[in-house]
């Protein structure tokens, strides 16, 4: 692991989720949910390895203030570990419930946009598109050495392709 990361100490609550608390006392839960149902037309070796990543505040009343780079470092570490198996791929779909999906997308993409740390092992593909009047922001993260790398990228691009009108 590269030395320039300063992740918060995080705990793994096996088998389901990660948890960490920031310096300002804000607690987050990070977890992955299977996304195979959205890739049904692909072989199980590919579809069953797609997961969504979500990061949630444990308490919605305790919100972070300002920028905390260590949250990004922690997420990079958690997602990086998950992808280290070189078989999984992670899809991030930006929550649009508060109208801040574009900001959320930019922030998430910037987190994985660094060199010389574990995210440099990860390929990031992002695609945003219109669907049913919604603007959906998404991103795919997959390890460069994943043996299904190209199939997974193509499957993701197909999923996030705008439907023909």
């Amino acid at each position, binding site marked *: 692991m590269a030395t320039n990361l300063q992740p918060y100490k995080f705990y793994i609550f096996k*088998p389901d*989720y990660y948890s960490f608390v920031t310096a300002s006392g804000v607690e987050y839960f990070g*977890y992955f949910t299977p996304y195979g149902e959205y890739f049904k037309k692909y072989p199980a070796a590919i579809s069953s390895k797609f997961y969504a990543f979500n990061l949630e505040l444990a308490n919605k009343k305790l919100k972070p203030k300002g920028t905390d780079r260590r949250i990004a470092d922690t997420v990079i570490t958690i997602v990086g570990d*998950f992808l280290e198996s070189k078989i999984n791929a992670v899809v991030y779909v930006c929550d649009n*419930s508060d109208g801040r999906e574009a900001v959320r997308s930019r922030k998430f993409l910037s987190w994985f946009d660094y060199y010389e740390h574990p995210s440099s092992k990860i390929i990031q593909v992002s695609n945003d598109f219109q669907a049913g009047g919604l603007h959906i922001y998404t991103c795919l993260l997959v390890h460069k050495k994943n043996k299904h790398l190209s199939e997974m990228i193509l499957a993701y691009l197909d999923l996030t392709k705008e439907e023909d009108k």
Partner: protein
Amino acid sequence: MPSTDTKKKTIRSKRSSKVKPMTKVEMFQKMLDDQKIIREAIQNGITFQELKDKYGYKFATV
């Protein structure tokens, strides 16, 4: 030999039992809805175990 009516019924019942694939809009709406339900559940003190056992959500093994 079965009557035509029976044949029609059989075909109709097979068609109706077939699960209609989700459209892209439905897929992304479901992703966002599930995300929201899980978030609100967690923030209201529902455990991951309960989300699995009572509500049928699945999580990757970490």
